[in-house]
């Protein structure tokens, strides 16, 4: 290979590389841009939000819009509701799904195949399919417009059991048998051997459940019939469509309050996230 060719190759590589960066950064700006504009605009005065042409950077930043969340809406309540529902749903799924996953993976019992079959069968069911019977059931049980009514339908989800079962299957039987010979009870084996080994799967399941609960919309929209049980997305959506003139001085800080905690958690845990999603995805 002669020198000039190698040099030309290298400069061609450099151009390709530069082009790639331009495309990737352009895409990144397209994806992240709306979030940045949302955050910046939430600090603008009402007049500036409506300014034509729009501004990028706030002229004089103000926190007044965030005050609106307390004055004109009951955001602390919605926030608490969202947090309670998401935390309880997550803890419940971690507990129930890992226990059931352990039974399905490692303990022979009658009806096991049937149970797992039913779990698999419901994995693909769209949430809108069960809305009507769930609502009828909830109103019969007196659960409509209660936080329990928002939590119970999501406390034991098929995906969680599927994930935990698949993971627990990979734990060697010898380990459990050794403990059984030492006369450890099944509960102790589960609590002291299985669960600690499941940490990566529990982390993935916890993150995914928390997120889907925090962002869940359809069921809370149906089941939270009064303001006192609204979650953040329900409050924001109903406010967004309820007004004749869209009040972005309220909607933007509202959106920030929903999105920001998730973004912070995501940035802190992004390694687990990406790994967890990639592994659950490919299994």
């Amino acid at each position, binding site marked *: 290979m002669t020198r000039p060719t190698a040099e030309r190759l290298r400069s061609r590589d450099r151009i390709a590389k530069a082009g790639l960066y331009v495309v*990737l950064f352009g895409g990144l700006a397209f994806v992240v841009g709306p979030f940045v504009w949302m955050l910046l605009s939430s600090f603008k005065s009402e007049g500036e939000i409506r300014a034509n042409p729009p501004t990028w950077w706030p002229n004089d930043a103000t926190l007044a819009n965030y005050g609106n969340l307390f004055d004109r809406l009951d955001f602390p309540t919605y926030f608490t509701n969202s947090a309670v529902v998401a935390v309880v749903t997550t803890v419940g799924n971690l507990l129930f799904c890992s226990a059931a996953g352990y039974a399905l993976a490692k303990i022979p019992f009658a009806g096991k195949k049937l149970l797992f079959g039913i779990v698999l069968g419901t994995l693909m069911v769209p949430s809108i399919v069960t809305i009507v*019977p769930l609502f009828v059931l909830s109103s019969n049980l007196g659960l409509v417009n209660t936080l329990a009514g928002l939590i119970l339908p999501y406390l034991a989800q098929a995906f969680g059991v599927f994930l935990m079962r698949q993971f627990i299957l990979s734990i060697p039987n*010898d380990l459990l048998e050794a403990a059984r010979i030492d006369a450890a009870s099944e509960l102790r084996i589960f609590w002291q051997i299985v669960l600690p080994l499941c940490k990566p799967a529990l982390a993935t399941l916890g993150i995914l459940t928390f997120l889907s609960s925090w962002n869940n919309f359809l069921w809370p929209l149906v089941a939270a019939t009064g303001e006192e049980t609204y979650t953040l997305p329900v409050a924001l*959506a109903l406010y967004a469509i309820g007004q004749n003139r869209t009040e972005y001085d309220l909607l933007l800080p509202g*959106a920030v309050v929903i999105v920001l905690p998730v*973004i912070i958690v995501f940035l802190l845990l992004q390694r687990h996230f*990406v790994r967890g999603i990639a592994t659950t995805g490919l299994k």
Partner: protein
Amino acid sequence: MPEVRDRTVPSDPATDSVAEPGPRPPARARRTTGALTGWGFALPFTVLFLLFTAGPVVASLVMSVTDLRSADLLDPFGVNVVGIDNYVKLFSDEKFLTAAGNTAVFVVVGVPLTMALSLLVALGLNSGLVRFRTLFRVGYYLPVVTSIVAISVVWRFVLQPDTGLANEILGFFGIEGPNWLNNETLALPTLIVMGAWRNLGFGMVIFLAGLQAIPKDLYEAATIDGAKRFSQFRYLTLPMLRPTMLFVAVITTIGYVQFFEEPFVMTQGGPLDSTLSMAYATYNQFGFGNYGYASAMGYVLFVVVVLLSIVWFKLLRNNVDD
């Protein structure tokens, strides 16, 4: 498996080999304990799951062949079984047909668009010359983890005709941007682009994992054989990515068939039903109190999800030689 049940020896080979001399309960007792502990662990999940997930799936099917309305909840005897009437009615219901058409466009255009974009980004990030990988990965993934309601609010803000960022940027290039969400022909395509924007990060992560699982020596061998970059992509990367593609396609399709939040917050299904989706139409029927009819709509949606998944399996499984 009756065979297992008739055996006097426990079926678990691991226990057979170890606990020989020591005292040990007879097989029948052990099996009963096994069943007890098994159900002990599975019961809390099973009860909740049957009551709130599996039960409603069946109940919905039953309701879909009745004329159940919200008023009937107080008087269950007023409910009649109407057979497949609800399903027949669906096919002459113009709102539903419009919704089905819109959903079809959303899925048929949106899924390939989303997959192509996520594959492009994944290929870019996997090409080996990229720094800031974490930045890109986190940035592109951001919309996936955020609330679709919040995102819809933000996009409505960005897409405002006079005061929005989108038209401001277009204006910079001398293009006068339209009123995106109030335009009958543009509203649905706008939501499709927004869907791709939101979901490309998910596909990207899965494709990246799939790309990294392809053995490097295959590429070395291909290079030695003189395969150009494009042929490597066409005859090596793409076939090796088939299982990954199948997964992304199925998950994306399941999500897109159900699309609801975006039109609910951004357009309320309008203008002139141009963004009314099947899930939205179902929700509306539920809101009108037509529970039987809404259940039938929901079931049609379910069947569509299953059928499309089968289509993807056929398309992407077919020519795999392994």
